[in-house]
């Protein structure tokens, strides 16, 4: 039944439930005329760790940027709690959705604790300093970098800096956390540690964690769900076991591999063969 246009109704606030309901329907995004995302459907509506995988340039980061308003998607493609993301202002969204970029730079000297406390901005008000400091410190402690608190950002290693950026996202205490390759600069131990922590936080705090990940084995080990992207659409979506099959990986990445099961999770062994071109 067609609905009459409502008269200046105040939009329903988002984030009233414990989790944010993100529905993506027929998302299309172009940089100028070059299409990156071509009719993508996905949903993130429960606390879980979702990994987005796929080769370079398929639109993984673009997808994330369309969800958190860094880019402007087509109308009614990204719905958050039933509202088009384009109608939600950045301030309202920031209280419920956090973002951890691949890297971050600051033109000016700033200490780690000050940087992490910037993550509290959406919740900050006059007199909230003590609470913000407490939360920021707890996050640093959780990531095991509390001894860096008074250091300057530009004195840190790439791995330490990445953890600080992650800490800023966690200090925001969002319902949904979007991460762009959160483990790219970390060594093996810290890759495992950080991903395990993300999984734990998503369970404990009932947080939806969506991360772009290039390490298929890390994604397989901890993800509840994997979204495999190819050429601007979702190629496959489901549990690690369903998505990470030899055929899918060959089709999407154009490489040969072997998938074995390890502790109930798929494990990918890369084969060093010349790629058998998929279009032949």
């Amino acid at each position, binding site marked *: 039944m067609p609905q009459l246009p409502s008269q200046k109704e105040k939009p329903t606030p988002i984030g009233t439930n414990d989790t944010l309901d993100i529905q993506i329907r027929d998302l299309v995004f172009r940089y100028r005329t070059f299409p990156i995302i071509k009719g993508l459907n996905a949903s993130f509506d429960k606390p879980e760790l979702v990994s987005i995988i796929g080769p370079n340039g398929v639109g993984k980061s673009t997808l994330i940027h369309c969800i958190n308003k860094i880019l402007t998607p087509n109308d009614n493609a990204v719905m958050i709690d039933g509202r088009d993301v384009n109608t939600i202002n950045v301030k309202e969204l920031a209280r419920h959705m956090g973002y951890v970029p691949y890297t*971050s730079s600051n033109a000016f000297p700033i200490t780690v604790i000050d940087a992490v406390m910037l993550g509290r901005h959406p919740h900050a008000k006059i007199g909230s300093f003590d609470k913000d400091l407490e939360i920021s410190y707890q996050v640093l402690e959780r990531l095991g970098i509390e001894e860096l*608190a008074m250091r300057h950002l530009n004195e840190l290693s790439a791995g330490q800096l990445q953890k600080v950026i992650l800490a800023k996202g966690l200090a925001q205490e969002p319902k949904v956390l979007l991460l762009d390759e959160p483990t790219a600069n970390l060594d093996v131990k810290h890759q495992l540690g950080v991903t395990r922590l993300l999984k734990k936080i998503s369970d404990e705090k009932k947080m939806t964690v969506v991360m772009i990940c290039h390490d298929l084995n890390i994604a397989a080990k901890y993800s509840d769900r994997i979204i495999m992207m190819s050429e601007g659409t979702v190629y496959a979506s489901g549990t690690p076991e369903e998505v990470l099959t030899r055929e899918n990986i060959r089709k999407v990445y154009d490489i040969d591999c072997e998938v074995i099961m390890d502790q109930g999770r798929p494990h990918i062994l890369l084969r060093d063969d010349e790629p058998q071109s998929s279009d032949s």
Partner: protein
Amino acid sequence: MVKEDLFREIKEKNQLRTLIPAIILVVVVLIAAYSLTILSSTTVGFIEALNTFIDGLRGVQPKSFDEYYKMELIYRTNGPRAIGAILAGATLAVSGAVLQNIIRNPLADPYTLGISSGAMFGMVISVTMGICVVPFFADQDGMVVNAFVFALIPTAIIILVSMFKKVTPTMMILCGIAVMYVFNAFSTIIKYVVDPDTYAIIYTWTIGSLSGLSWESMPKMAMGVVLTFIPLWLMYRKINVVAIGDKEATTLGVDPNKTRIICLICISLGTALIVCYTGTIGFVGLVAPHIARAIVKSNCRYLIPTSATIGALMVLGADVLMRLIKPSLPVGVMLAIIGAPVFILILIRMKKSIW
């Protein structure tokens, strides 16, 4: 480090960072009071000068010629000069600090976006041709009004462009430079043909001078501080967030473009109000924020007040020094001569390389 120790350290540091601008402000007031006693032809005691100044403020009429003479020099000449120096330094330094943060470029100063060249062009056409863009103003007033109006044009162009297109910080700088070249070219044409006396006036103005400030201009110059310091300090959280990058600012709930435009409007109005009276005092808008950063780091909550007081200290200090040594030079010269080596010394002596 234990948590309690860390929290105590952070809080102590923040208290110190709040205290620093207050301490500098006291020093500034003391220097300002001292500057009242600098007279070219006669000597006067500190207390006497202060008394005369307070009498002037209260509107006490001088009884003898001697008193009248002192009132004229201390209250009408030195007073506005000291206060003007403080207001100019504070406005330029705050503008520089905020502009550096919002366009994330340590080389930015209040003139980066073309404010100085616009103001100069307005001033030049007023001095040489007697043209004023606002009717019914002439001579000195016409020059001030012209400088003010033309100083706002570069920012107006940037804001106009931003209505049609997303303007990145780099585009803002390039846009400012382009406008600067156009205005400078026109100014140069005029300067090329004017007589030497007019050229000297223009030249002094481009270096920035505090002589000739009067009480009438003080409320407007004070508006410069009010327009920059108060709104920008209230926005310190947003400015901090914009400084880390547009993407991250967006996801932390701050619209970077909107914040930048609001800051730009405050900065250009404030700077224009100062520049149209003093000319383009250089250096302080670039360097005072960096000295402040070396002391209190880049959190704008502390950076803005510290920059303001350091800027005031620099301009006032340079003016006082210059009047003691060679009174006829414009303040901009002394700022560069003393300020630049001091700044380089600070860069060398800094414990950590933080840039």
